[in-house]
């Protein structure tokens, strides 16, 4: 099936990723750990733009930017530098933003997404480094406020702005692109996407190949989808009514779910970009091999490997590799010799991941053994995104125990799911939970189940026995003994079999 794109929608996204896993800001030593702090407590002369203060580039930020560029398949530029983008806004303490202009650190690349009609490449135009402005809080709505409150704690945080080509044809594709980007960035361990403002999106949208409109101030992925749906509808309606779409910037009002026109006098021409005299150029090309060596296996590569190494569906491979921690957790389970990899995929991707997401848990820590892959043991710890005091953790050994117990009939499928829930909600190990909750089938049940399974699975022998071949009963008893791993005694098994076959 080929997607026709009936409305000629073209969407390009500019995603600002805040590298909040760095210890310090882009140009000063202020801590990036400001999210729960009082306003204006994580600022210094540099990020407050005090007269006389000078910037110095955080080397790690450059390394992270290169890492992102490489992961997106971008060319890393030979030599780059910072420019000043001159404009006035109260969140901008120097009256200019230090950003990159003609030589962004990363050039063209691409991201593969699941499009409307199968896999699809979304082109990356460029990725560049820049500093985050401070944060404004309008006292009331933006147009009728009594004033603006400014908190510069965010000022000077490292941003990577990833600019895509207008290759997305629907809000859904835009959402998939964002999810994929997030997944790649998570793998790189350069940011914590769960922190407020970690990924912010500006969207360029046009319909029927017309003039594009820039929608700013989108702060979540859900918001992106809503803003795009609204904006596409607005543009289509406008055209239907005989109106025209003009190049403009609109502001997404998250609360109302609408986009509003923002009149700005400045255009791209007015920014007066020029090289930052206070910073020296950077030659980064020769650092590429070292940075490339630190890249982990990325989602697409991991997915392909999973399909090759383990027995699983493509859907499971995708689900298991969208998050690196989950992928590692899966592998620790699947590598156990008593567990079937396909079984493990169902348990991890469908059941465990569902329960984890249902609780809105963000992975905030993990332990593993050994330190480097392949891990024989992985333990995931998570906290509820809205209430971080609610925490959970579960180890791959727990899941292995659960799957094993289900497989050998000690517990039912439903009990297995119940055990996962209890571990996540109340803690404890699988073994303890199964005992404490009395989920283990009693011995008699195990034998009884084995008997009925044996009868069901060995029709020929059953018919032989019913036809008078007493010897066939011995075979059936043997099967029951095998299933129960010798836990039943032979006399009991024989009695139960005879009783069942006679009824």
């Amino acid at each position, binding site marked *: 099936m080929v997607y026709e794109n009936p409305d000629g929608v073209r969407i390009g996204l500019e995603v600002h990723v805040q590298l909040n896993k760095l210890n310090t800001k882009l140009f000063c030593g202020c801590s990036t750990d400001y999210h729960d702090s009082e306003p204006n407590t994580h600022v210094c002369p540099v990020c407050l733009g*005090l007269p*006389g203060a000078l910037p110095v580039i955080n080397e790690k930020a450059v390394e992270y930017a290169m890492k992102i560029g490489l992961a997106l398949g971008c060319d890393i530029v030979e030599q780059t530098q910072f420019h000043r983008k001159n404009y006035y806004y109260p969140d901008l303490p*120097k*009256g200019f933003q230090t950003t990159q202009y003609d030589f962004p650190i990363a050039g063209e690349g691409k991201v593969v997404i699941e499009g409307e009609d199968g896999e699809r490449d979304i082109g990356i135009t460029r990725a560049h480094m820049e500093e985050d402005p401070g944060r404004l809080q309008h006292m009331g709505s933006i147009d009728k406020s009594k004033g603006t409150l400014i908190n510069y704690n965010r000022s000077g945080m490292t941003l990577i702005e990833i600019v895509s080509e207008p290759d997305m044809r629907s809000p859904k594709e835009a959402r998939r692109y964002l999810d994929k980007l997030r997944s790649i960035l998570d793998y790189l361990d350069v940011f914590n996407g769960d922190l407020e403002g970690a990924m912010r999106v500006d969207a360029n949208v046009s319909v029927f190949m017309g003039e594009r409109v820039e929608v700013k101030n989108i702060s979540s992925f859900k918001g992106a989808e809503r803003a795009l749906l609204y904006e596409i509808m607005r543009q289509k309606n406008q055209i239907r009514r005989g109106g025209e779409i003009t190049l403009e910037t609109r502001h997404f009002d998250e609360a109302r779910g609408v986009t509003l026109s923002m009149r700005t006098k400045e255009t791209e*021409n007015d920014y007066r970009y*020029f090289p930052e*005299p*206070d910073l020296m150029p950077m030659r980064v090309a020769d650092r590429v091999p070292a940075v490339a060596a630190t890249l982990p296996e990325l989602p697409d590569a991991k997915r392909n490997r999973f399909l090759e190494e383990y027995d699983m569906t493509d859907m499971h491979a995708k689900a298991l590799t969208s998050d690196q921690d989950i992928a590692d957790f899966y592998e620790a389970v699947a590598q156990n010799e008593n567990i079937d990899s396909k079984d493990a995929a169902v348990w991890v991707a469908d059941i465990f991941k569902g329960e984890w997401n249902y609780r809105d848990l963000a992975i905030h820590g993990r332990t593993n053994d050994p330190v480097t892959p392949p891990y024989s043991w992985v333990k995931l710890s998570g906290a509820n995104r809205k209430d971080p005091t609610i925490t959970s953790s579960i180890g791959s050994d727990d899941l292995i125990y659960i799957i094993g117990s289900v497989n050998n009939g000690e517990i039912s499928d439903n009990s297995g799911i119940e055990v996962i829930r209890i571990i996540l909600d109340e803690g404890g190990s699988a073994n303890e939970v199964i005992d404490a909750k009395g989920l283990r089938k009693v011995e008699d049940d195990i034998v009884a189940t084995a008997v009925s399974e044996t009868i069901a699975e060995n029709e020929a022998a059953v018919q032989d026995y019913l036809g008078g071949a007493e010897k066939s009963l011995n075979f059936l008893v043997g099967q029951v003994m095998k299933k129960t791993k010798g836990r039943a005694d032979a006399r009991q098994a024989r009695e139960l079999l005879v009783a069942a076959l006679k009824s």
Partner: protein
Amino acid sequence: MTKWLSISDVKEIIAATSAEEVTASYLELIEKSSINGYTCTSDGALDTAKMVDKGEVAGPLAGVPIAIKDNISTKGLATTCSSKILEGYVPPYDAHVIERLKAAGAVIIGKTNMDEFAMGTSTESSCYGVTLNPWDHERVPGGSSGGSAAVVAAGESPISLGSDTGGSVRCPAAFCGVVGLKPTYGAVSRYGLISYANSLEQIGPMATCVEDIAAVMDVIGGYDARDSTSIDNKIDYQAALVDDVKGLKIGVPDEYFGEGVDSSTEKAVWDAIAKYEEMGASWGKVSMPNTKYALAAYYTIAMSEASSNLARFDGTRYGPRSEGENWHVMASRTRAENFGKEVQRRILLGTYALSAGYQDKYYLKALQVRTLVKQDFEKAFANFDVLMAPTMPLPAFKIGEKVEDPLSQYLTDVNTVPMNLAGVPCISVPCGSSDGLPVGLQIIGNHFDEATLIRAAYSFEKNTDHHKARPGEVA
């Protein structure tokens, strides 16, 4: 206590009396001053002096007062760039050079007057009013570090710091008859220096003798990780205080003795060169053909950078704030009402020179010319150890004489801006007089060759008496 003390004089007096007494007597002099050289004095000066006396602070400049140009950030002490837009601004941090001075035991005695945001050659654009030239109160002290030069010339501080973007240390040093050094770009950290034109400027010392220049440079010079343009290139300045110029090759660029140069000034400089020859140096002419365009290139670059550097003064985080119905109007009004006229002109011109459609014609072109000017110096230094020229084409002009015509004032910088474009070090030393006013000899060195510069300047001083001339008793 006598006026016009050198650092070693001050140290002697401290040994005989106390640092507190020395500081107190300077504060008294400043109190009685009629030249308007200081914008404020430091409340902490006496405390520092007392700490020196108690032995709690030591170092090469222990107890020595120093006056600081008002564009160098001093923690807890108002720093205004002589602009209304920084009225009441008290930095919460010290500039790198201030940290170094404090660690060396120096007493920050006060802040000195300057052209607003260092934009000028006369100190007339200060919001505090002009500083008077100690030699003739009807004349300007030069600029933009006019206060720093005048207080040293008037004996109100033994040493001072200025900043030099296009001659702002050397011009007032020449006009006031003191010694002033502009170090190689990158030799002194700019951290805490309020930027006018970042790619051009350096902090530099002023003093009554070369020895003191070297002593201050040994304290403030050297690498600072907080300034990305700082260069790790250690120079031992005081070790260069050698009275010997035998074999020194002096280049004399024709282009620095152009039409506008005052004849007495020219004579004083040639006499100085003759003196060098007598002392064992040799000289030859050198051509620096792009000098002619240096001034236009310099002003284009300086204004462009300034337009961006001064964007932060918008009334939001510091300084006064005008009324306005929204933030943009507030900012526009704050800037219109609190920047002086010359600053506004330069911001407008700089904004224009960087704007789309004009950036290549002005800004980029100026940077290309800068390359040519730099190459002139490279060629000259292939054959000569130092270059010599008049610092200023004329002696101190009358107050008010050039206020109305900015261009005529810009033109006086013709001999000082090329070095900032090239980033090379240069020093102005007194070398005589013109109409009873001091004349400065400018000695220019190659990148990071301050040692040769200091040796040349020191030797001249040891063999002449020009530096001993004081206001009212011109030699």
